[in-house]
């Protein structure tokens, strides 16, 4: 029986020189839940997300992923990361590889799948995100929205247990945001565990089980979307929400 809490974070601190990006964050995420993190820029939300797959090494504190300690002596960070998909703000597709190769590369060299199997899974994922016809195109030939969907397919092809999204729509033109959010909504409905840093309140309302509001490196408030919108408890949350919901 796997543990219920797939992500456990305890007393996380992260300093960049004198800047305190995370100032004591504790958080648990249940399996199959969608958690949306909001907050002003510089509040530490991206840093928190990047600590979850160890792209950022915390100054102190502890993280467990599916029961495995992220800073343990004998832990295999690559094996843990293979179970955590990440989608970046700037897509970060591999420009020298075709879409299909982008999605098959890690499957082959990390998951050790045969080329045929990797390709089959890649095509499944590309179909899921709605662009199988672009399999042989190169990233530079795609629109931003298409690139981000390929990036999601690339992460999903590894069959991760958790998906992290770091402001996945903030580099997109407005007309392309919906196509990416639709894919993310589908994913949430299918029961994927997701941690999403975003400013898309529509998505948060529709998909999130919980919303976390961060400011100055700490979690200020944690609530369901209804509670947070209708009845925020903290002044800082009210202020932030009034700023982003007005336009």
């Amino acid at each position: 029986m796997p543990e219920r809490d797939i992500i456990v974070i305890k007393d996380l601190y992260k300093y960049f020189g004198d800047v305190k990006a995370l100032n004591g964050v504790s958080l648990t995420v249940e399996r199959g839940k969608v958690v949306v993190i909001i907050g002003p820029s510089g509040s530490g939300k991206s840093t928190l997300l990047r600590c979850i797959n160890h792209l950022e090494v915390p100054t102190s504190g502890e993280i467990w992923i599916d029961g495995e300690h992220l800073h343990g002596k004998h832990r295999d960070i690559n094996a843990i990361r293979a179970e955590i998909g990440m989608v970046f703000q700037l897509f970060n597709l591999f420009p020298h590889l075709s879409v299909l190769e982008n999605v098959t590369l890690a499957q082959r060299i990390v998951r050790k799948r045969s080329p045929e199997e990797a390709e089959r899974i890649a095509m499944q994922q590309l179909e899921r995100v709605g662009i199988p016809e672009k399999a042989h195109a190169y990233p530079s030939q795609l629109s931003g929205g298409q690139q981000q969907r390929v990036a999601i397919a690339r992460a999903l092809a590894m069959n991760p247990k958790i998906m992290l999204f770091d402001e996945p729509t903030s580099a997109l033109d407005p007309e392309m945001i919906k196509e990416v959010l639709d894919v993310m909504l589908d994913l949430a409905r299918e029961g994927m565990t997701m941690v999403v840093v975003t400013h898309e309140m529509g998505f948060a309302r529709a998909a999130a089980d919980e919303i976390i509001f961060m400011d100055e490196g700490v979690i200020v408030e944690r609530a369901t979307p209804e509670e947070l919108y209708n009845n925020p408890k903290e002044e800082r949350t009210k202020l932030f929400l009034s700023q982003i919901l007005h336009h």
Partner: protein
Amino acid sequence: MIDTPSGQTPEVASLTPEVPSEAAPLESLKIEKGRGLAGLPWWLFALVLISVWVGFVIYLDSDYREAFTFIKSGIRLTITISLSAYAVALVIGLLAGLGRISSNVVINNVATFYVEFVRGIPMLVLIFFVALVGVPIVVEGLNALGVWIEGLGLGPIAEPLVALQNQSVPMTLRAMIALAVTYGAFLAEIFRAGIQSIERGQMEAARSLGMSYAQAMRYVILPQAIRNVLPALGNDFVAMVKDSSLVSVLAVRDITQIARLYAGRTFRFREAYVTLSVMYLTMTIILSFLVRLLERRLRRHA
């Protein structure tokens, strides 16, 4: 044959600002459109014309022909030594370049020491140093290693190490090693700049998929980095062809050494050095032109 659009800065040059590029005779090859005759590369026509003209002189004038026939016996060695030293330098350069960006303190310092050591010494002195100091030290080291292995009772393995003698390392090989060690440091800086020109998100994306650092380097970073620095690598090959002339100080019989011998023997300095210069010029112009073609091709498919 030369119609580079104006105002287009070479991509790689901007990506690799710290790369020591002493080669590239055709670097200034840019046609400025709309300037008519004034925009044509007259200097290049002049260079080609001189080469062709000297070619005719060699063909027609028996003194020049004799000089050329004599000197060209070294061309094979010049080409062999340039190619083999460059191949070895590529390997050294890639390893040292990776070392320069390594987060491992020891590896990083060793690589940086090597690069700065080489860059701080004139190439002529380095060639003496590597051939006449470095190689003997390595030979002595291998001898000592052989004696130690012999002590462990592994006679058959130890034997060739103990038997190795300084004199048995030919000067040509030493010259090749010297050039490779020198250029390895230059190429290391090119590789380093190339790798650092790849945005950080690429490494992060690869690592987030579970790839190890080595896998991410091999499949994601290096393919892009090397493509970006191909023109710079080509330019350094041109530079190495020219610098291979320095090995003549080790009495290795490349075209420079043979031209010196010819001049010393016949006192026909003009014939010897005009012919020699034009031989280098021909090689470097052709090679530089190929690098330019490669650069344009890469830019078109960027």
